[in-house]
């Protein structure tokens, strides 16, 4: 109990009291709360009042611990066979380590006094104790290490490893034994700098070696007996098993430890047989064996280089399967854009599913999918556009962008397909188009076709949903489609809105003045911005029916009042109308182009006449090309029972038309529905309008011309920035700059470089023929 301060404090007396408690603690006997608290007080008294109290106290304690540990050592050595030795070591160690946690607490005064007073007399003569606040704890561990552990550590380790091996063989063992040994190695480390050094050098080292030894013979045996596929499962299972085992037995406080273990496992289980495993990858991919691929991926992903080989396998597979599927269905999909897009999507979904299920959407596999799918999409085996232009002669490109644009048109226009689909379904399909579009190299072609289709939808008012049109254009922008194309599409959509206002203003302005008011009501104007819609034909000339001809100046007059500085170019090739056709069978409404109208109105003055080609040409003032095309739609419109006009030209082909070829009205014309002639009816003869009037060749010329400009522009941009550049880098930067529009061919690039050199925008370097230098202007 507390003693008054002034009384003399004798170390012997005090320690005698303390020793009892210390012994009880060491031997795991009951210590009461009072005794425990008393020990603190006694120690405090000794260190405070006794000369050299610290030193004396530590010496006595050390003596006591030493003899305790020596006894424990003796008890352990009573057992001769390895396993009992291990058992008893662990029992003693477990007990002792409890004391290592508790005993230092009452002695914390010693540590503190020692530190705050720098009282060397108290210190044990080791470097560690001077710095460490855990003086007592460390002393205890050191004694254990010295007296017990170092003498038998190798033996213990061997026994422990044998136990692990038995566990690997399926026996159940007492895991505490192995964990205890590991703890001993970790706790008894004496290196301050590297607290795990002892553990790493002995325990971990042995563990990894025994692991390797264990599997080395077994794996090849298993493989020989069960084959590579079974081995794959075996390796996968063992890998997981060893990882889990290591979690129990190894110290994973540092990540390197885990890495070392995995590295070792992978080496013995996977890398040894990597070639054989990888050889299985192509057939597994071909047969979509998801669980096995997943397993193989798990294994190979752990090796340093193996995954590349699997990536290559997947690339080949996507390419070959994709192209085969296209070739097999070539006949259907080349003519049916819907089937084509669906085919592409079906494959895309299949490949993506494989990557998701088997390769867990690993980014490397996704990249490979994109690369391979791009090859499929842009492949020119099945469909191609052949360029006849001189600078692109013989070069071919996939028709994919064209078919994609056609598919968009089917979805966006009032068509049989779009009517059957819900709004959500259409959105989903449009999403799919964008998805495929991402892989299309020549986006300029897609945009061109899309613009043509959009023009037709807007001019003929066939667009099913204006909002969807706008959304799609917005999506194009987000998808990084060429900005100037996107802007034009937007302006086209805006133009249509502007024209709605224009029409109502027009009707109001004319209603007071005009005597032909009824007719004004039946006219709709579309006055469009040339910059956005394209200049189109120089002049689409046609002689209009009288009432329309008279109408034109009226509109021009009106428009002049609305705007200044604008001139109008009537594009009758784009306009259309509804006419009523009265035959002896009934009255029919025909939707016709203005060209068709102009031709048909020739018969108004003489309904029964047979009119010659030459007369029609004079009367309509159409060019031969336009007249031919218009006449064909009137004498041989596809899929109708009765044609509007009849002719003496057989077979019907514009090539066979001569000036004297005769045309006359089919007086028996009627609209036929369900095999019955109708008295009233409607028919649309507009077809594709005169938008795609230009020949493909001309269309392609324009595409190429635009590309030429883009390349020139891009080269100048790059040169301005770089001043001087090597040809290889120029190529790379060009492709990067233009890839959202098209993939420039080497030949085209080369020609443009030559042209720019001729025009003195660049010159070749004197030192290196392959380096170009920008010439300032």
């Amino acid at each position: 109990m507390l003693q008054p301060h002034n009384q003399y404090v004798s170390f012997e007396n005090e320690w005698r009291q303390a020793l009892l408690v210390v012994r009880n603690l060491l031997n795991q006997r009951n210590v009461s709360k009072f005794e425990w608290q008393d020990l603190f007080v006694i120690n405090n008294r000794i260190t405070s009042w006794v000369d050299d109290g610290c030193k004396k106290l530590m010496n006595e304690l050390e003596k006591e611990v030493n003899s305790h540990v020596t006894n424990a050592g003796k008890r352990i050595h009573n057992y001769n066979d390895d396993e009992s030795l291990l058992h008893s070591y662990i029992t003693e160690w477990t007990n002792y380590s409890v004391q290592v946690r508790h005993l230092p607490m009452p002695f914390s005064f010693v540590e503190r006094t020692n530190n705050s007073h720098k009282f060397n007399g108290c210190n044990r003569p080791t470097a560690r104790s001077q710095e460490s606040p855990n003086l007592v704890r460390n002393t205890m561990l050191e004694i254990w290490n010295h007296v017990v552990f170092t003498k038998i550590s190798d033996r213990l380790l061997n026994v422990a490893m044998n136990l692990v091996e038995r566990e690997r063989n399926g026996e159940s063992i007492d895991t505490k034994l192995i964990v205890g040994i590991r703890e001993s190695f970790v706790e008894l480390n004496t290196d301050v700098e590297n607290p795990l050094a002892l553990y790493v050098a002995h325990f971990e080292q042995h563990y990894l070696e025994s692991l390797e030894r264990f599997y080395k013979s077994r794996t090849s045996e298993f493989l020989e007996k069960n084959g590579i596929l079974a081995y794959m499962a075996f390796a996968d299972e063992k890998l997981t098993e060893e990882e889990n085992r290591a979690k129990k037995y190894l110290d994973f406080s540092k990540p390197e430890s885990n890495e070392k273990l995995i590295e070792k496992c992978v080496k013995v289980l996977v890398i040894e047989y990597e070639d054989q495993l990888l050889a299985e990858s192509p057939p597994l991919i071909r047969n979509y064996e998801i669980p096995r691929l997943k397993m193989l991926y798990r294994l190979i992903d752990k090796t340093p280089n193996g995954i590349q080989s699997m990536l290559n396998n997947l690339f080949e597979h996507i390419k070959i399967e994709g192209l085969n599927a296209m070739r097999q269905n070539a006949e259907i999909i080349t003519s049916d854009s819907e089937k084509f897009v669906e085919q592409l999507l079906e494959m895309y979904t299949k490949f993506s599913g494989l990557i998701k299920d088997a390769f867990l959407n690993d980014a490397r596999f996704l990249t490979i999918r994109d690369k391979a799918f791009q090859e499929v999409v842009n492949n020119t085996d099945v469909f191609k556009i052949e360029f006849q232009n001189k600078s692109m002669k013989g070069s071919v490109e996939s028709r994919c962008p064209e078919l994609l644009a056609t598919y968009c048109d089917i979805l966006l226009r009032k068509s049989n397909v779009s009517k059957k689909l819900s709004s959500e379904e259409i959105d989903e399909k449009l999403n799919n188009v964008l998805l495929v579009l991402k892989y299309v190299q020549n986006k300029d072609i897609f945009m061109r076709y899309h613009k043509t289709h959009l023009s037709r939808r807007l001019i003929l008012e066939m667009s099913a949903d204006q909002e969807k049109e706008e959304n799609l254009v917005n999506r194009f922008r987000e998808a990084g489609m060429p900005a100037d194309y996107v802007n034009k599409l937007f302006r086209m959509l805006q133009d249509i809105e502007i024209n709605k206002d224009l029409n109502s203003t027009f009707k109001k302005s004319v209603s007071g003045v005009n005597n032909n008011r009824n007719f004004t009501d039946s006219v709709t104007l579309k006055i469009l911005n040339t910059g956005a819609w394209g200049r189109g034909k120089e002049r689409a000339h046609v002689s209009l029916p009288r009432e329309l001809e008279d109408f034109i100046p009226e509109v021009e007059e009106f428009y002049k009042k609305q705007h200044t500085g604008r001139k109008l170019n009537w594009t009758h090739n784009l306009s259309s109308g509804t006419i009523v056709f009265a035959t002896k069978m009934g009255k029919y409404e025909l939707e016709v182009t203005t060209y068709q109208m102009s031709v048909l109105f020739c018969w108004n003055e003489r309904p029964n006449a047979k009119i010659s080609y030459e007369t029609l040409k004079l009367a309509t003032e159409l060019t031969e090309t336009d007249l031919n095309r218009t006449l064909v739609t009137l004498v041989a419109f596809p899929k109708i029972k009765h044609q509007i006009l009849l002719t003496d030209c057989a077979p019907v082909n514009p090539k066979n038309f001569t000036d004297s070829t005769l045309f006359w009205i089919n007086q028996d014309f009627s609209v036929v529905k369900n095999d019955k002639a109708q008295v009233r009816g409607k028919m649309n003869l507009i077809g594709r309008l005169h938008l795609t009037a230009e020949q493909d060749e001309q269309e392609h010329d324009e595409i190429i011309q635009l590309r030429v400009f883009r390349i020139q522009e891009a080269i100048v941009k790059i040169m301005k920035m770089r001043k001087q550049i090597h040809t290889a880098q120029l190529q790379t930067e060009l492709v990067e700059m233009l890839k959202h529009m098209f993939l420039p061919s080497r030949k085209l690039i080369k020609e443009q470089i030559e042209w720019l050199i001729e025009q003195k925008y660049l010159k070749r370097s004197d030192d290196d023929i392959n380096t170009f230098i920008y010439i300032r202007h």
Partner: protein
Amino acid sequence: MNESSPSKSPPKSENKLFTLKKWNAVAMWAWDVECDTCAICRVHLMEACLRCQSDSKAEDCVVVWGECNHSFHNCCMSLWVKQNNRCPLCQQDWTVQRIGQ
């Protein structure tokens, strides 16, 4: 070959073979200019000038005509006259004749 004889009496207008019911007229407008390209920014006059393109104000980018009948983007010209009040093409003093609308 001769054309067949025309019908004896031309049909009355309401009995015409073809009567017009609706017409959708389409025209393209463009600035009424002599030269398509703006000599200041080198962009086609039907497109917005570079400045407006990058500010996406393409709607407001109109054309201006001088008394000399030369035309430019209005934005380009209004910057130009701050430095030099002459037409960049003919060097006459610049007076605005009209502004497109």
